[in-house]
């Protein structure tokens, strides 16, 4: 590339999702927030899609008010507890799928080296680490399209071992399931199964081509049908529009998750989204609040990308609707130190607890 001719961004604010309408005037925004408060706190009803769309367009100056309402809603619908979870990539990289945000896909040349399923002792050591951090949930994550028979065997061996040794609830994330696999995992003691929708159905083909949205929805249904709690997350910042984020909230409502982990894109070198701009901090707060207002009773978990996206607004997210977090490191990237997060919860006087579905 030439030294003199560098590409320049034509967007005045890179990282902002494209909106199909202008921001609301300040007085209209105030009224919309008040109406949402009455609906969610007094009438105790879910907001309609139109009401949510209105709130998504409040001006930046109204985002703290939106966040304050989301915090009230979280306290009213879920209580004061914050659920803490640790996650472990038990089988890393080499995944045949092509999710464009993922450094573990074999389709992209990334620095992440594929490694086989960890030994039982390595998984137990990570679970013990997680328990020592005050967590109640431990998620075993595998970079696979779906579990093969050998993987099923390992999962079914590990789940009761982790539970017996640490007392933690055990969650699993192992991709697309068959009905038989979902049944065996449910019977095998898996407390929660993670299977993200990631983004809106209308945007999904732009970021994944090796499987479709319907397959994801089917697995989500199987999880709930087999007695496991559904953990179904979102990843914001891949280029989806405001309308598509709203569409995703509606789709998440339809699968009735117990938990929604909210990720923000952390652009990974070597992936097609490796150079994507990160979501702005205030924009992230707006969408944390929006997810809480759209999904008032879910466990809304701080997940990957929050460190680089929120920076100094990390604490504000906790008072914008979040009521759970992943503590310590992620699958292939590192997080804040557990001490920082635990201190943050202590400073906010937010008790650590176990959360269940309240609907």
């Amino acid at each position: 590339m030439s030294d003199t001719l560098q590409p320049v961004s034509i967007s005045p604010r890179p990282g902002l999702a494209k909106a199909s309408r202008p921001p609301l005037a300040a007085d209209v925004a105030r009224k919309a927030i008040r109406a949402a408060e009455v609906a969610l706190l007094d009438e105790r009803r879910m907001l309609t899609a139109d009401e949510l769309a209105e709130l998504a367009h409040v001006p930046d100056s109204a985002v703290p008010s939106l966040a304050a309402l989301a915090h009230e809603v979280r306290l009213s619908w879920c209580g004061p507890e914050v659920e803490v979870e640790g996650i472990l990539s038990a089988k890393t990289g080499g995944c045949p799928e092509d999710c464009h945000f993922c450094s573990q896909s074999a389709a992209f040349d990334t620095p992440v080296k594929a490694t086989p399923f960890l030994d039982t002792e390595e998984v137990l050591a990570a679970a013990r680490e997680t328990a020592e951090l005050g967590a109640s949930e431990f998620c075993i994550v595998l970079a696979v399209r779906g579990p093969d028979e050998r993987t099923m065997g390992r999962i079914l061996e590990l789940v009761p071992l982790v539970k017996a040794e640490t007392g933690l609830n055990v969650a699993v994330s192992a991709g697309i399931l068959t009905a038989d696999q979902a049944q065996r995992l449910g019977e095998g003691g898996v407390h929660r199964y993670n299977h993200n929708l990631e983004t809106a159905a209308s945007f999904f083909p732009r970021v994944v081509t090796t499987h479709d949205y319907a397959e994801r929805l089917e697995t989500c249904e199987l999880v709930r049908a087999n007695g496991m709690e559904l953990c179904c997350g979102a990843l914001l910042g891949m280029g989806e529009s405001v309308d598509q984020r709203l569409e995703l909230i509606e789709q998440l409502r339809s699968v009735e998750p117990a938990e929604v982990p909210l990720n923000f894109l952390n652009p990974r070198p070597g992936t097609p989204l490796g150079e994507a701009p990160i979501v702005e901090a205030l924009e992230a707060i707006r969408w944390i609040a929006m997810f809480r207002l759209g999904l008032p009773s879910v466990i809304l978990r701080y997940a990957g990308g929050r460190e680089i996206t929120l920076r100094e607004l990390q604490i504000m997210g906790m008072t914008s609707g979040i009521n759970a977090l992943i503590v310590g490191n992620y699958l292939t990237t590192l997080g804040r130190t557990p001490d920082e997060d635990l201190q943050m919860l202590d400073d906010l006087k937010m008790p650590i607890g176990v959360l269940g579905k309240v609907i």
Partner: protein
Amino acid sequence: MAVSGEAGTGPGADAHCTSCGRPAADCAGCARTLDPPHYCATCGTRLAVRVSPGGWVGRCKHHGEVARS
């Protein structure tokens, strides 16, 4: 980020960037915060990295465990 282990001593210890694997002379340092090292500082080979909630370990197939936190 402190990188410890045997690769931190001896000749060639910093011959390669631990984030991109290129010879150190070709990379002024491209490390991102909150990423563990992915390449051996001595030989530039991609590391097998195990990340857990409380730490991480990087292993080189030639030099064994080269980094840990």
